[in-house]
């Protein structure tokens, strides 16, 4: 790093999973790293999510980063403590009808091209794999490499790893502003840093207004323990329509087995809602969607319901790299619903950019300056 008078080489704002992963990557480079969070670790979007590590093909750039990140997760997995509950359960993309079966084949071709192992399941094979799915479904696509992690414990693990590598972590420490010299605290105090990384998730736009990040609300339900009821992460093929669409609100069937035997049920997406209260109308739509695919869910005991805000960008890709108009401010934010998956890849791309070297995948699609360049 150029500056030798700074207190820190890198100040990371946000101790969600993305900030934590960046801390590990930058500390590994020998940088003196500070991580700040206005609350405790992983208490924002990270806490609200599902912990799905998924290769997602909404766009080539999305697939490149999710696939790359997934490999990094697999490499990290052996060192994760049991509390992280990493499990390579695979994902089944569920097709509800013949039209969606053709989408299964298209998707399979894309995954094949990218070296991701996927198997087409017909209706019977789908029921063999997941006996509790509704009988009227047409089939699905099983992606072996997808996994599930208890993202809260993983974030904590990453933070502690960064601290072991020499990073400093300060929780309950808000940041009011970012500059090329470091961060400003609400008290007016400044902490100097050679590089500042905005990993503030859904709040990243407050600190860097050029980042177009809109909160996109979601709901999740968790059940009591029903071990073995669901075996894979299950997602309806229409999910991408829901995720990609910019409709005010949408729901899609998505369930996830937890190692505890509990089942997570999602998903909903809502723009223009900044209220974290449970929205009964959308919750009911989401549950109804779940019952269409998995009728036995109806009788299951729901233990908790919560909401969270995904940091959504206009093109559904995160901002990774130097923030337009600044020399030393970088972004690692805007991952929408893929922050858990993409965290590790994001950290590597960011470290590569800061250290001035090439990355295994092109970084340009995620550059914060891309929207300015393309318009």
């Amino acid at each position, binding site marked *: 790093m150029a500056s030798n008078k700074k207190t820190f080489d890198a100040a990371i704002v946000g101790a969600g999973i993305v900030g934590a992963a960046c801390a590990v990557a930058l500390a590994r480079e020998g940088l003196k790293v500070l991580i700040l969070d206005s609350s*405790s*670790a*992983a*208490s924002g979007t990270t*806490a609200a999510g599902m912990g799905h590590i998924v290769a997602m093909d909404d766009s080539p750039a999305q697939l490149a980063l999710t696939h790359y990140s997934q490999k990094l997760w697999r490499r990290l997995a052996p060192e994760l403590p049991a*509390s992280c509950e990493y499990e390579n359960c695979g994902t089944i993309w569920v097709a509800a009808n013949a039209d969606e079966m053709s989408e299964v084949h298209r998707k399979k071709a894309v995954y094949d091209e990218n070296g991701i192992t996927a198997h087409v399941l017909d209706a019977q094979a789908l029921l063999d794999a997941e006996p509790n799915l509704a009988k009227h479904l047409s089939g699905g696509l099983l992606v072996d490499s997808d996994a599930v992690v208890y993202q*809260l*414990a993983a974030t*904590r693990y990453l933070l502690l790893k960064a601290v072991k590598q020499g990073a400093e972590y300060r*929780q*309950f420490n808000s940041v009011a502003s970012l500059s090329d010299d470091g961060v400003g605290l609400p008290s007016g105090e400044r902490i100097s840093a050679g590089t500042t990384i905005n990993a503030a998730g859904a709040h990243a736009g407050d600190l860097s207004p050029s980042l177009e990040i809109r909160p996109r609300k979601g709901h999740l*339900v968790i*059940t*009591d323990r029903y071990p073995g009821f669901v075996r894979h992460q299950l997602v309806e093929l229409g999910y991408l329509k829901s995720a990609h669409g910019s409709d005010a609100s949408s729901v899609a069937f998505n369930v996830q087995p937890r190692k*505890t035997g509990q089942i997570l*049920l999602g998903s909903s997406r809502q723009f223009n809602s900044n209220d974290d209260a*449970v929205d*009964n109308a959308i*919750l*009911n739509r989401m*549950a109804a969607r*779940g*019952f269409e695919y998995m009728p036995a*869910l*109806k*009788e*299951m*005991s*729901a*233990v*908790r*319901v*919560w909401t969270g805000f995904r940091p959504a960008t206009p093109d559904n890709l995160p901002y990774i790299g130097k923030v337009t108009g600044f020399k030393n401010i970088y972004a690692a934010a805007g991952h929408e619903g893929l922050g858990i998956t993409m965290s590790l890849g994001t950290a590597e791309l960011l470290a590569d950019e800061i250290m001035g070297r090439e990355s295994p995948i092109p970084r340009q699609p995620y550059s914060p300056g891309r929207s300015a360049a393309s318009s």
Partner: protein
Amino acid sequence: MNKTSTDILIVGAGPAGLAAAAAAANSGGTVTLIDENPRAGGQIWRAELGKIRSPAASKFLRALTQGRVDLINSATVFAFSGDNTLTAQTPGGSISISCGKMILAAGARERFLPFPGWTLPGVFGAGGLQALVKGGLSIENKRIVVAGSGPLLLAVADYLKTHGATVLVIAEQASAAKIRRFARGLWRQPEKMVQAAALRARLIGIPYKPDTWITRCRGPRVSKRLARELEVTIKSRGSSRVIECDYVACGFHLVPNLELPMLLGCQIRDGSVSVGDHQQTSVRDVYCAGELTGIAGIESSLIEGEIAGLAASGQTEKAKTLIKKRDAATGFGRALDHTFALRPELKHLVEDDTLICRCEDVSYAQVKDFATFREAKLQTRCGMGPCQGRVCGPAVEYLLGWEPASVRPPIFPVKMKYL
């Protein structure tokens, strides 16, 4: 989902809720009383109603049988929506009830403090063991240690004894000096003193030990011995002794069931709901009565319920004379709080491997270093199981000084289809 509406909706059919219902029933408006148990009466009267032993209980039951109050049993309120509507799960489906005014009388539950062995089979909550006996568990000739704190221990010990058990000891953690002061204070309320004296008379033969608390419980020493013997260590003024017994009934006084008032946004102060002269909470059209406003026993609950019922149904004039009586009764509650406040030594009973959260199997070592309940929940799932922190919450608040965790619907586990 069934939808219905009522002028006054009362949650909880214990003494406070029944008194509120009886008082409001005279107003001419519609009154609905909703309760999670199959029978009205609350923890204290549930087994009695039907047999009618207590004159107070039968008086309030009359309002129900005369049809002036609509009673919905076996209904667990789990959610609230902004337009004064509560949603409940019942065996027949979910119901949503909108109302003009709401009276919360959700009562209290026992507080448990973890100690090594508190999760062994045979170790019960004091009220919990009593409930099991009411439900048919035979305790004939069983040797039972009753331990913890509060007047409930006496009532439970009495109950267990009359059902054939041998109560070896009542270990009360509060100091002898505090208990003496408390007992003297009871003279000012003759009715209570009569109760206490009667109880004490029947307890003759059961050693009542203040300054005494349970520190550990071990399973049976000799295997294959019917697996029924527990070894309980109790500590008293520096010396410890071990008692062999069949069951332990242990509870550390009571804590209000604050989940519903918190869900509605009622102001909470010092662990209970803040209310005004007419039992009104900080939330418009919402009243609270009974143990939710502070643990003060049945008389206070009855008066508070009556005031709330009168006030919510526009009969505030009639409530006037009750206010003074209520203040005296809540004074009794303050004396209870003071007398049975937990001694600091109880914070040190837990060991690293002692379970704190029984639902999610979380040990003390896993949570002790977190600064907030939320952080511990997120990292360890402490308090995230089916009981939703009702057991471990009050324990960690005491042990670690954490603020209560926030409350979200559903406040009870509910079938997915009713969400």
